[in-house]
């Protein structure tokens, strides 16, 4: 097992190398010039060229690539072309909101979807099953932004239960919360209560699609397991339906469920872009979009490398989790 994990981690190195080359070339061969964006509408072509020169963008591509990879090996992701802030600091500023959104979303999705899927499988063919499946189809079909705006209109604007937008850190200097630095300078501070008030609507809006996805897979997987001989045997032994469902059916149906949750976490990284925009959460998704629109190459390169690393890591964790869920699987 240990050797397998090491092998998999080592295997990520060439993957990341290919990602790095691909991303670098793709970005630099795509039309768009950060120097022109910086110089603005009123700059002369000579000014734009001068800025390109100071940014080093007029050097041959291979020189720029080796300079970037050289810094990368020293753990330096570079400096934003526009804000002159180190990329690692920018990512550091944005990672907490994205991680918080992704975590609360996936927790919400799993807590809602798995019971719904099991219930639908158990009551297969009944109105409960059909209701869950209609909910799942809706969750897939309705775009996130429609769900988000509807929730904002009803729960924030009309009922004033939640704020419209923004993010509050759960880190707080003192009081109820984890120790940390509150960057908030506004009227409401940081802490767990402001955090949950701000993250609730985005998590639900983003989570509904994953509820639909996980509930469908759970239902199909549990339904398949429920036809197995050992389930019939469990019933024959006089075990209650609840015990049969949770201890025998759900556990044996969990491999595809865990797989889809893992895929869901990876997909979340893409899904957060819209949610972060609608709820104005300063996370990695928005940082990526802004950087692409402005051709801020160091930020885009750094983010894609990190995203690729997260994908690889999640896949590894999912594969390892199989060994705990199914004793037949060994590496």
């Amino acid at each position: 097992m240990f050797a397998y994990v090491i092998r998999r981690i080592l295997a990520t190195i060439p993957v990341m190398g290919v990602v790095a080359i691909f991303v670098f070339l793709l970005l630099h061969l795509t039309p768009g010039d950060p120097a022109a964006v910086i110089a603005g509408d009123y700059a002369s072509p000579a000014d734009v060229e001068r800025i390109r020169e100071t940014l080093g963008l007029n050097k041959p591509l291979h020189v720029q690539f080796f300079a970037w990879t050289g810094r990368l090996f020293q753990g330096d992701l570079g400096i934003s072309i526009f804000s002159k802030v180190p990329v690692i600091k920018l990512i550091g500023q944005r990672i907490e909101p994205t991680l918080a959104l992704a975590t609360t979303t996936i927790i919400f999705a799993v807590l809602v979807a798995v019971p719904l899927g099991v219930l639908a499988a158990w009551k297969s063919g009944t109105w409960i099953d059909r209701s869950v499946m209609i909910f799942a189809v809706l969750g897939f079909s309705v775009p996130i932004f429609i769900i988000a705006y509807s929730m904002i209109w009803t729960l924030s604007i009309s009922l004033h239960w939640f704020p419209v937008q923004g993010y509050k850190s759960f880190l707080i200097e003192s009081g109820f919360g984890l120790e940390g630095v509150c960057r908030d300078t506004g009227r409401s501070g940081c802490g767990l209560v402001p955090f949950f008030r701000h993250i609730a609507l985005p998590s639900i809006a983003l989570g509904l699609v994953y509820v639909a996805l996980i509930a469908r897979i759970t239902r199909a997987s549990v339904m398949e397991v429920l036809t197995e001989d050992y389930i019939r045997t469990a019933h024959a032994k006089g075990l209650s339906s609840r015990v049969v469902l949770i201890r025998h059916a759900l556990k044996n149906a969990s491999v595809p469920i865990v797989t889809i949750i893992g895929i869901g976490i990876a997909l979340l990284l893409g899904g957060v872009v819209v949610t972060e925009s609608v709820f104005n959460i300063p996370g990695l998704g928005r940082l990526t979009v802004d950087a692409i629109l402005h051709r801020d190459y160091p930020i885009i390169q750094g983010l894609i490398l990190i995203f690729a690393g997260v994908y690889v890591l999640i896949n590894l964790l999912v594969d390892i989790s199989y060994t705990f869920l199914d004793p037949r699987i060994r590496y």
Partner: protein
Amino acid sequence: MAEKVLRVAPHADLKNLDPIWTTAYITRNHGYMVYDTLIAMDGDLNPQPQMLEGWDVSDDGLTYTFTLRDGLKWHDGAPVTSVDCIASIMRWSKRDGMGQKLADFTKSLSRIDDKSFKLVLNKPYGLVLASLGKISSNVPFMMPVRLAMMDAFEAVPEIVGSGPFIFDKDAWVPGSKVVYRKNTAYVPRSEPASYAAGGKRVHVDTVEWIYIPDAATTMNALVAGEIDFWESPAVDLVPSMEGNPDITIKVIDPLGTQGWLRPNHLNPPFDNPKARQALTHMVNQEDYLRSIIGDEKFWSTCPAYFMCGTPLDTDVGSEALVKQDLEKARALLKEGGYNGETLILMDPTDIPVLHGASLVTAQMLRDIGAKVEVQAMDWSTLTSRRAERKSIADGGWNIFHTYSTGADVSSPIANIGISGGCVEKAWFGWPCDRDGPDSLEGLRDAFSEEADPAKQKAIATKLQARAYEVVPYVNYGQWFQPTAFRSTLKGVLISPVPFFWNIELN
């Protein structure tokens, strides 16, 4: 007492902090928070002393003596000196068009003492005060000499100004939030605030710029009271807020914005003035403005190259633009050598106003018999593509659209679109009309050398008439961006640039 925080949703994210390094309007607005200017434009577009106590001009008009007012301090506590100002002017003049022009006329710029300095011209120049009081990008903001001595093509590493607010670097989250603290050491002028001039009295402790990329979210945040001021609401969302007594909708930029249809003067058929004149006959401003703005109270047709409602406003030469004539346009396009080739129109789909204008132009070109290929791209791609002087066969272009604020086009020198400086000096599209005193460049030079406003107006009128012959660009209309803010705010200033002094939170 609770901290008074003014929360603003700006029109864009503040990415660059150096307003000399970039011309981006958001950085210009940031500049006005942090820095101050020697001279500032008032509501009548007259230059007024701001950091200066005043100035003297010699009888021959060649020597300007400037004196700083008392009490000026940088945010680090050091006093503002004439050496700081000289270095700042020199750095600015390397980047700004009006600054470069001023530098061309400058014989020397030298210190007299810590509070005064002298500008000596090599020949009379009528725009010295207008240049130093320029209200829009690049604004000649003053910086400490250690920063102002830096290369103008590199951004300054720290933000130290002498303006009414102090930039809180630790609280800055690029792409999300900018925080400014009241500069308690700032001494405002005694005059009332007017445009960029007058007393910059700050009535709040902190101003937060919260960048919200989604317009609907910004509107909801304003309605819910989570922000106080929305600089540039999407015009189609304005009706949703108009009936709300908690929200005030107001046009605070009286100069407005001008749309530009920019042909490439290097590539056929628009290398021929007849073909460019065809565009003037083709454009109906009303079609554009209804399409991109909609509500009539936020736009007006305007044939003036230097904006309607400004001192240089005139309709001379504009007959072709005022009355659309597609048949005439078709005939002129043919006379201009158009032979049915495909015209390349670059369409920045991520900027709704320009995307709308591009689609209107494409349809009008088809209406006059042209074949058009609308190439969709984002603005970043367009900014690099437009710099290409290639032929169409090699990936060049024929037309793109942009817009410019009134503050940037209301003077022949500031209006870079009207320059006929050819590939060496003209803006992208490269109009070429520089031979003789009656050319675009000849008239711009004459304007810059003239100090008498009446004579300047006469020259600008001739310049506009010439522009309608050369057609450096076609003006597709003037519109006025509304601003939305909580009705509890008092003292929001009318100005082409949004200023956050003078505002009181009730």
